[in-house]
């Protein structure tokens, strides 16, 4: 008997019992269910149900995950070299895509993924069984996003606590997938940031083992680019490094290049809205340009604590600090984002605009992106409301002109 047949039998066996949703979820995860809605009539069979949608987002995220695993190792060995004063020439095959680097990725990044999925899906299954509805697919993407937006050294217990909080408070209390007002992955990130700030910022957490080695002779560190700019320091990374992502940062958000590949998958399959992605970048560029002009007109001088970040060239802001990741994978969340086309432009623009503003004015919140997206999540329904209302008013006027 086939695997699908076995799953189907299991499902039939538990039909009508309390545990039914858990088995239904496994069954429909990879296969179409055998049953049809009713015997006669027309059936529409489409491949793009919610599970397929989620799976495509995961496919789009995989390059970032793989890159993050290599980068975890690369940053580790680079930091050790830097601490020992060794300078080695950088080649992609020789020093980045190596088995040593991948191994660090496997022992550090994979556990994050496993814990995120394990804990999150457990909460989802428990809620599905208690509430007696089908297991919802929402966590498939959240579970993949979470390990990509946390620092590599995040303790696993901390991640579990945050995932439970994010799924229960961020999603289930509102009624589950599709009802949440905040992006659950960002709720988890925000919880971690506010609950355990020492693990989410500083120059230690971004490199594997750096926290353990603090205070010893082998101490290593890796300050993020935003962190360096906030302290008015120069960074040693080239624009190419920043774009390709060979920089310290959260696990999977450093490589703007791979994020753009993910973005093209999302846009091609029409799952992510290109309007939101584009307008986030436009908004960020606009705010970056404004800050550049402020520096150009000498309103802010080098003595100011904002100088380092304000003087950052506007296009550089787009490649650092997770802005691209937020724009492509977080802001485009169809549940929490704006629904109307005009609303999407406003929503995206404000995310970009506010991200850079938060980042520059409050160096304690270098990851302004997640705060900006959460803030705009809250405002998305309001934006939609006024867009729809504006449209109604416009058409009412047209109606009056015709009838008059």
């Amino acid at each position: 008997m086939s695997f699908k047949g076995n799953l189907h039998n299991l499902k039939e066996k538990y039909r009508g019992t309390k545990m039914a949703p858990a088995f239904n979820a496994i069954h429909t995860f990879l296969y179409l269910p055998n049953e049809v809605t009713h015997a006669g009539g027309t059936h529409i069979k489409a491949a793009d149900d919610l599970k397929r949608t989620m799976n495509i987002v995961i496919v789009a995220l995989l390059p970032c995950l793989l890159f993050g695993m290599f980068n975890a190792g690369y940053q580790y060995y680079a930091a050790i070299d830097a601490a020992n004063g060794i300078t080695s020439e950088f080649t992609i095959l020789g020093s980045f895509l190596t088995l040593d680097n991948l191994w660090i990725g496997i022992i550090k990044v994979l556990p994050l993924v496993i814990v995120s999925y394990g804990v999150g899906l457990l909460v989802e299954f428990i809620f599905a069984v208690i509430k007696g509805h089908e297991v919802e697919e929402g966590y498939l993407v959240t579970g993949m996003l979470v390990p990509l937006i946390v620092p590599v050294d995040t303790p696993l217990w901390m991640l579990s606590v945050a995932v439970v909080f994010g799924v229960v408070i961020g999603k289930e209390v509102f009624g589950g997938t599709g009802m949440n007002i905040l992006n659950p992955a960002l709720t988890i990130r925000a919880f971690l940031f506010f609950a355990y700030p020492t693990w989410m910022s500083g120059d230690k957490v971004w490199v594997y083992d750096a926290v353990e080695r603090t205070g010893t002779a082998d101490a290593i560190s890796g300050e993020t680019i935003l962190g360096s700019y906030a302290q008015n320091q120069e960074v040693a990374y080239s624009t190419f490094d920043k774009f390709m992502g060979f920089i310290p940062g959260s696990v999977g958000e450093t490589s703007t290049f791979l994020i753009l590949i993910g973005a093209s998958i999302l846009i091609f399959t029409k799952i992510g809205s290109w309007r939101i992605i584009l307008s986030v970048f436009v908004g960020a560029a606009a705010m970056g340009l404004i800050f550049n002009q402020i520096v150009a007109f000498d309103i802010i001088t080098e003595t100011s604590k904002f100088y380092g970040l304000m003087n950052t060239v506007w296009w550089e802001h787009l490649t650092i600090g997770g802005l691209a990741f937020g724009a492509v994978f977080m802001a485009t969340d169809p549940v929490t984002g704006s629904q109307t086309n005009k609303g999407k432009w406003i929503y995206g623009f404000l995310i970009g605009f506010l991200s850079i503003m938060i980042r520059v004015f409050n160096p304690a919140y270098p990851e302004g992106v997640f705060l900006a997206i959460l803030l705009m999540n809250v405002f998305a329904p309001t934006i939609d409301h006024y867009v729809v209302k504006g449209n109604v008013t416009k058409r009412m006027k047209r109606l009056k002109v015709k009838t008059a």
Partner: protein
Amino acid sequence: MAILSKKDTKLITDPLADNNPITIQVLGICSALAITADLKASLVMGIAVLFVMGVGNVVISLLRNLIPSKIRIIVQLIVVASLVIVVDQFLKAYAFELSKTLSVFIGLIITNCIIMGRFEAFALANGPYRSFLDGIGNALGYAVILILVGFFRELLGAGTLFGIPVLGDPIEKTGLFSTGYENNGFMLMPPMALIIVGLIIWVQRSRNKELIED
């Protein structure tokens, strides 16, 4: 023979659970969010409100036939304000450190909606004895939630209860404990108090289906 009649007992027990001023009537939320970061402050705030409400309800009840209804709010405010000043001065004299932690929130008991609400809804229409019981009951209901929230926030946010470390020995300046527990900074922020109050409401309503509103 019971000390209180059945009807009078309900005056005290009702606000403790099924008609709780915070979780059911959703009154007095601001002080519940502001001062519950540690248990001691929650307890003192609870006692302060207990005093103000117990005495205030009796005073208003005694005056209820003398107060012209047009200026009753002003009279009520004067009664609350005098009682609150008594509490404030008392704390400043005997627990100065604590009165600094509670800062304006003792003064703001005046504006606590539970107190004005009970004056208006109960003391103006009932005798002093029953008003006293009602005041005590509502203040206890308020204090119970405050202490519950304060317990979780201090335990998880600072690893202490009444300032005494209970989750192992703290390691200086790191927020870590010898047992491996780590302080959850989010617990000390007001949003978390709101979430804890929300969770209490969730538990309470799922245990008692009659409380669920459509």
